[in-house]
């Protein structure tokens, strides 16, 4: 039963979606309370658990409120029959987050805080690269270390079980020192998005290529590999007993994980129970599923006891999947008046999803490293109709006479690719919105006007654009040395929320984003403050990606950006002031979590171009890149055919 009334008059509601730090449980409580006609304190939305269902797939793609929220409303409305419609509605009101008071009081709130009776502490060491060969493993000192109960080896996978967290940390350190690897063996090659070996695929085409072209503008934009970089290291608990496996996880998809765990350990799905427990903020397919395998693999050594595996910071930044590098080439054929006759978008990217639950073999890191290794599933992309992956937001939202969108699939990327917040939209919107600015500049049109003119068919897009521009004072913006303003705008996935961003930057020794103004239309905002928080957080995360972030790989193919020192993210002193305005409407709710990323990075890049008159087309926008761009000819983008 999804909805159950308790003896004390409260109602417990089950959902298959999970809290990732985005405020889902609060929004779902509001939806359920309204549909049940109850005050929010009488409704409790329970954490997801495969033992109870429902199976609602993965919590991803900004679809939770949009789809599962509506299913929840229907289920609650059906259960309401004998209920009393006494409580005032709460959907649409900024209900404070249900979970925050306990978190601010320091109460156990996260999976890392779980401590069942008899808990054992494990660490698992993965090879430094996918193909690294083990040269030496003398684990005798680890066996003798204080509190160590077991040392396990299975192929290239090593684990240690200890009686406490402290002992597990020390034993893991010893174990790390006891293993020597040859990373050169079987290396794939340098990390680059360019080694496309797949044939180009046509994504979308409209209109005809013109015969009389006045000139053609061309530009190529890139984004690097980006890490999830969650603040809390991945963690899972597992316990075996009577041929059954029980796992506690902060995975985004508990049913998908259950299916792959069953596959990896040769169990029926029914023999595996997967329970969700909150982790630190999650922005896509991070190490949560991998560490669940690690815990199950290691807990098998000591049946009947719960065992916790915690990843290290280096694992979190070095072993989890990354959002892949992408390159986007854009061309626009213009007529003599500067009108776009034909637009071409060619992107190169690996697949953006290698999530569990979708392939013939488990999508779990450790399962590829045992003595009988499973084949790592290739990263794939969902069809564009389901949101796509690399091609997300590649089809322009502007009214253009004709276009062609195509894609090269990088089939053997150098790093492990999977879903990171907004998938391909980040690179595609960055490229499209930068290129639009380049066209506007080349044809002497204000970038806001260019967008307005090409959005006559989309009133909601125009509205967010105009609202952001108005709040930023676009029309009367002051011109000052080293200060620039830029705009970015997109409808997420072409079918989700509309979002526009204006950035104000200051150029100096480094690029500083001073202020951001965002406007969004997500239809009915179940919790307007929750939506504002998601837009604001997305904009700040995108600013961090845009200014600072790129995964680094050393000569041996190891991820070297595996500490905060080597993978810096935006700090308090660098965070811009963010103004968020929502266009309130009763239209169906649309997800808010990913809409801001593309528009924000584009606005920042366009503001940089506005400030300095140079265009940086490769992310991140580091001082080195800015200096390099200043040395390039100013007309790099324009070539007359």
């Amino acid at each position, binding site marked *: 039963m999804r909805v159950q009334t308790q003896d004390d008059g409260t109602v417990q509601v089950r959902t298959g979606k999970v809290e*990732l*730090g*985005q*405020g889902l449980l609060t929004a779902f409580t509001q939806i359920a309370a309204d549909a049940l006609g109850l005050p929010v304190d009488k409704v409790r939305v329970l954490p997801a658990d495969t033992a109870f269902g429902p199976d609602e797939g993965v919590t991803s793609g900004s679809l939770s409120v949009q789809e599962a929220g509506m299913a929840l409303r229907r289920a609650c409305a059906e259960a309401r029959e004998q209920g009393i419609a006494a409580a005032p509605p709460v959907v649409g009101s900024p209900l*404070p*987050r249900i*979970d*925050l*008071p306990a*978190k*601010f*009081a*320091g*109460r*156990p*709130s*996260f999976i*890392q*805080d779980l*401590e069942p009776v008899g808990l054992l502490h494990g660490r698992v060491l993965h090879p430094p690269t996918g193909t690294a060969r083990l040269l030496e493993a003398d684990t005798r000192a680890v066996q003798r270390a*204080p509190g160590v109960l077991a040392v396990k080896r299975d192929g290239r996978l090593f684990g240690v079980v200890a009686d*406490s*967290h*402290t002992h597990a*940390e020390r034993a893991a350190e010893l174990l790390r020192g006891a293993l020597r690897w040859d990373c050169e063996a079987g290396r794939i090659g340098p990390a680059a998005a360019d080694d496309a070996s797949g044939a180009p695929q046509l994504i979308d085409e409209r209109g005809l290529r013109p015969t009389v072209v006045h000139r053609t503008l061309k530009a190529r934009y890139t984004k690097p590999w980006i890490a999830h*970089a*969650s*603040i*809390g*290291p991945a963690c899972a608990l597992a316990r075996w007993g009577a041929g059954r496996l029980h796992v506690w996880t902060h995975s985004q998809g508990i049913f998908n994980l259950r299916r792959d765990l069953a596959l990896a350990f040769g169990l029926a799905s029914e023999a595996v129970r997967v329970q969700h427990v*909150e*982790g*630190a*903020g*999650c*922005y896509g397919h991070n190490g949560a599923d991998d560490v669940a395998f690690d815990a199950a693999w290691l807990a098998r050594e000591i049946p009947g006891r719960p065992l916790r595996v*915690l990843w*290290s*910071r280096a694992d979190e930044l070095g072993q989890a999947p990354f959002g892949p590098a992408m390159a986007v080439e854009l061309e626009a054929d213009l007529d003599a008046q500067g009108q776009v006759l034909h637009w071409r978008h060619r992107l190169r990217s690996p697949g953006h999803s290698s999530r569990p639950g979708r392939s013939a073999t488990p999508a779990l890191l450790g399962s590829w490293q045992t003595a009988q290794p499973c084949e790592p599933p290739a990263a794939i992309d969902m069809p564009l109709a389901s949101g796509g992956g690399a091609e997300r937001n590649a089809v322009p939202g502007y009214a253009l006479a004709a276009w062609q969108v195509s894609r090269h699939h990088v089939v053997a990327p150098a790093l492990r690719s999977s879903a990171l917040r907004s998938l391909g939209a980040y690179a595609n919107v960055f490229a499209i919105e930068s290129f639009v600015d380049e066209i506007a500049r080349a044809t002497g049109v204000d970038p806001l006007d260019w967008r307005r003119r090409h959005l006559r068919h989309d009133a909601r897009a125009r509205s967010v654009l105009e609202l952001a521009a108005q709040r930023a004072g676009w029309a009367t913006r002051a011109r000052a040395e080293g200060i620039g303003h830029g705009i970015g705008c997109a409808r997420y996935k072409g079918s989700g929320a509309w979002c526009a961003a204006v950035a104000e930057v200051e150029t100096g020794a480094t690029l500083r984003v001073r202020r951001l103004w965002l406007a969004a239309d997500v239809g009915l905002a179940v919790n307007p*403050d929750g939506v504002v*928080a*998601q837009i*604001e*957080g*997305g*904009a*700040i*995360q995108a600013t*961090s990606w845009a200014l600072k972030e790129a995964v680094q790989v050393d000569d041996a193919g190891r991820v070297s950006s595996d*500490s*905060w*020192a080597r993978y810096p*993210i935006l*700090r*308090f*002193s660098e*965070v811009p*002031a*963010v103004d968020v305005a929502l266009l309130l409407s009763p239209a169906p709710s649309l997800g808010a979590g990913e809409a801001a990323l593309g528009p924000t990075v584009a606005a920042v890049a366009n503001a940089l171009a506005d400030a300095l008159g140079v265009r940086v087309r490769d992310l991140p926008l580091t001082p080195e890149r800015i200096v390099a761009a200043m040395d390039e000819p100013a007309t790099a983008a324009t070539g007359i055919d």
Partner: protein
Amino acid sequence: VIAAVEPIALGVNGSRHALQADPKTPLLDVLREMLRLKGTRLGCGEGECGACHVLVDGRSQASCTLTLEAVAGRQVTTVEGLDAGLREAFVAEQAAQCGYCSSGLLIAAAALLRERPAPTEAEVRAALDPHLCRCGAHPRVVRAVLRAARGGAR
């Protein structure tokens, strides 16, 4: 064989403890594992992210790189031991998304407000700068600390 060690005295949130433990045990482990105070979070174990900050004699410090012996005889305050005023300001501003970094931020804010009861926004940002937040709740956190200052929180 582990040699018997002298108990180490430590004050935590106003209580006195005599801890029988390896003097090299990280303070973070003492708090989370021995004293079961789970509010102090492990983020990196390298003193780089700020998630595990506690007050040591009133100063905000990373507890993952401090050993028990280094804080012997000192007074430690964890997030569980902070006054309600600061916490209420964080709730009022809804100053978190996932909340994993919040404990460290609350500690940094408490240390700042003890030193400077009426900080400027720039001073708040500077005090919070050692702390990483991945969700992008920064503006709300800064507002929460300024609100707490106006309300007289320590």
